[in-house]
């Protein structure tokens, strides 16, 4: 048994040299990643869905930025999964197993470099999309700052998708692996995680990046708690480490193998096996903790957001300080909005203007309108899908923008929604009331009240409430209301105002019949 030593062994490697070599391999992998071919299609899909969707949302940071996890992330997932699996299966597909197995660098390092090549492109594409989106949002919004946590959660979850798909590709190499993994992971993310906490009660649906659109108050009146994002980062970071650890352990991928089952082909030794085992175990532990925490997620009654009790800092529930922006409508009626809605101030003022010309000076008519958080509007009002209530002395019309901003793409609906709400609040009162048994009952008002309400709305050129409504009178009984409303709308404005000034109290008390309406 003689071994021939031809020359002295080379000097031992050091860590910095090893890192330098690995970084050069990773750079080479970046240059050759097939993901680059997907970028044009990804860009088209990005503009087609997430970007356009954001542009149609109200110009609020939190709402528009929600397209990152809600729409952009699901677009990225199949590409990230497919191309990562493709990269992972490369050695098997290209029949280079023997060639690379005979090299000095451990399989784990080699494969992590390959994964890094695809991951770099995936994160670059994701980051670029987010940057484009955020720049466009920054140019449109009037208040607040960009939410950062959803970006972190998105980046970490895409890393997890890449790592998981790459490992699957390495374990089951084949030309069909990539499409199968892409479809499989997409279905998994869309079907299983595409649920929100509010839909699923309390559950792991808090792990879902997709499908969560924050409440309107979030990030406007109240800060957005990072609880859910932290849980998502924990869970997906755990999944990433688990997949990477598995890659380092599996003899099938040239990894270290479990103790006693070391693959001879592996360049790995005990230290690498210990490292891979530790990474795998840490990943699983982190994912389990994240999963467990997600199961405790709940809707916060204080802020309307989602909180995870173990992570939640109640100090972060304090309402955000702001200075309202105000403008006066005709007749000195003042409208005040949160500065985040400054862009809608003139639209709001012009919506309130004509209706306040009809209502101002009437007993109980508000002297100004103030936007308040949706959560602050009484639940009987909220649940009836109306957002305003007149309270205080002097009377103030308090309303939320929740309903109005849903109508932003349609200026007429936005305008009519404002007018219907305030007329209802002044002429009829709160739109809902709880019965003795605790059931919410729609307060449609009497037929005379409906007729006056509709007449006023018609007089100022707005749509009245729908004639047939499950909450209101049956259609058969609407003819009297319609006729009275038409009469009332046809009156001169001064006559109408004078009649209301004299009869509004009796009308609200239910003592006026449609026949008595002039």
């Amino acid at each position, binding site marked *: *048994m*003689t*071994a*021939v*030593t*031809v*020359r002295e*062994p*080379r000097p031992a*490697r050091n860590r910095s*040299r090893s890192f*330098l*070599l690995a970084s*050069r*391999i990773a750079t*080479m992998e970046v*240059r*050759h990643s097939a993901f680059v071919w997907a970028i044009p299609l990804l860009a088209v899909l990005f503009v087609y869905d997430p970007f356009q969707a954001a542009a149609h949302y109200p110009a609020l940071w939190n709402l528009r930025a929600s397209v990152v996890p809600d729409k952009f992330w699901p677009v990225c997932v199949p590409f990230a999964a497919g191309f990562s699996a493709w990269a992972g299966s*490369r*050695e098997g597909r*290209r*029949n*280079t*197993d*023997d*060639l*690379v*197995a*005979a*090299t*000095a*660098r*451990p399989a784990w390092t*080699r494969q992590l470099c390959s994964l890094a090549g695809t991951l770099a492109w995936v994160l670059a594409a994701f980051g670029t999309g987010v940057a484009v989106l955020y720049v466009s949002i920054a140019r449109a919004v009037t208040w607040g700052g960009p939410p950062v946590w959803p970006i972190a959660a998105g980046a970490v979850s895409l890393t997890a998708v890449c790592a998981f798909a790459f490992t699957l590709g390495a374990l089951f190499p084949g030309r069909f692996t990539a499409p199968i993994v892409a479809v499989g992971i997409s279905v998994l993310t869309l079907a299983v995680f595409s649920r929100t906490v509010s839909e699923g009660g309390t559950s792991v649906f808090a792990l879902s990046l997709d499908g969560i659109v924050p409440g309107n108050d979030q990030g406007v009146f109240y800060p957005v708690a990072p609880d859910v994002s932290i849980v998502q980062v924990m869970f997906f970071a755990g999944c990433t480490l688990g997949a990477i650890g598995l890659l380092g352990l599996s003899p099938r991928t040239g990894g270290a193998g479990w103790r006693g089952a*070391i693959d*001879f*082909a*592996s*360049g*790995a*030794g*005990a230290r*690498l096996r210990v490292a891979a085992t530790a990474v795998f175990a840490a990943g699983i532990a982190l994912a389990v903790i994240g999963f467990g925490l997600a199961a405790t997620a709940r809707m916060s009654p204080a802020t309307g957001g989602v909180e995870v009790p173990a992570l939640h800092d109640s100090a972060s529930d304090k309402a955000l300080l702001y200075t309202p922006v105000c403008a006066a409508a005709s007749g000195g009626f003042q409208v005040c909005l949160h500065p985040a809605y400054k862009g809608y101030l003139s639209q709001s003022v012009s919506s309130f203007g004509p209706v306040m010309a009809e209502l101002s000076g009437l007993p109980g008519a508000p002297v100004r309108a103030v936007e308040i958080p949706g959560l602050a509007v009484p639940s009987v009002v909220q649940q009836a899908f109306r957002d305003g209530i007149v309270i205080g002395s002097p009377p103030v019309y308090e309303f939320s923008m929740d309903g109005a901003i849903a109508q932003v793409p349609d200026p007429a609906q936005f305008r009519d929604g404002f007018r219907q709400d305030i007329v209802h609040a002044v002429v009829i009162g709160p739109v809902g009331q709880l019965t003795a048994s605790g059931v919410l009952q729609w307060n449609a008002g009497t037929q005379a009240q409906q007729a006056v309400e509709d007449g006023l709305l018609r007089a100022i050129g707005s749509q009245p409430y729908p004639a047939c409504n499950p909450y209101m009178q049956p259609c058969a009984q609407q003819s009297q209301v319609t006729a009275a409303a038409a009469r009332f709308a046809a009156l001169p404005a001064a006559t109408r105002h004078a009649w209301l000034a004299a009869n509004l109290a009796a009308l609200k008390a239910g003592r006026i019949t449609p026949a008595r309406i002039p």
Partner: protein
Amino acid sequence: MQAGPGVLGLLGPNGAGKTSLLRMLATVLPPSSGQIRLLDRDPRNAAQRREIRRRLGYLPQNLGYYPAFTVVEFIEYFALLKDVPASRVHKAVAVAVERVDLGAKAKARLRTLSGGMLRRVGIAQAIVNDPDLLLLDEPTAGLDPEQRVGFRALLRDLGQAATVVVSTHLVEDVGAACSEVAVLDAGHVVFRGTPAELASRGTGHDVGDAPLERGYSAVLQAARSASRNTCASPNNGGVAA
């Protein structure tokens, strides 16, 4: 079986175990029995196995490659995987490319190369780390006669300092480039000697067109008739290179 600096040719029929032996020497396949010691190191030990691999060059029978890589990138990739110091990688790649006469195609993508050129790329990646142990499985398959002549000269040159083990079906390659030859049959070494000694075994044997072919046929025939007449004992021997 033991080998030192020089070129050792492995001959044998299909299924004789040449590729399996090379894969074991390349530390890709664990031996089912026996022991292997390479470059004074035990490949069963992870640290020693890694040191062996740093000083190992291997060209498998079926060369896999990455079509999008250029010639230089592919060889550089393997130089990095073989822990060639970063400062020496560029020079090592350039030398390897020139040694296989692919300088004109250095920037060409592998998908554009012919089979013979790909074989030369495979040889270049095997020698890029200036290996002390070079294992070549059918290296001349796909090469044209002129390239084969050039490759034999390269083999002789490499064999000056390194232990080169070449598996081939082409006895003329063995005669021209190998200082030693081993004939394998059914997993056993049935002949070990110089090409001249192998050729001399063919004296009086009429199967084959050249002396080496006749020697090869005679050795195989003798080994097979011996195995028919005796009960073969299990081979628990070892290999050292």
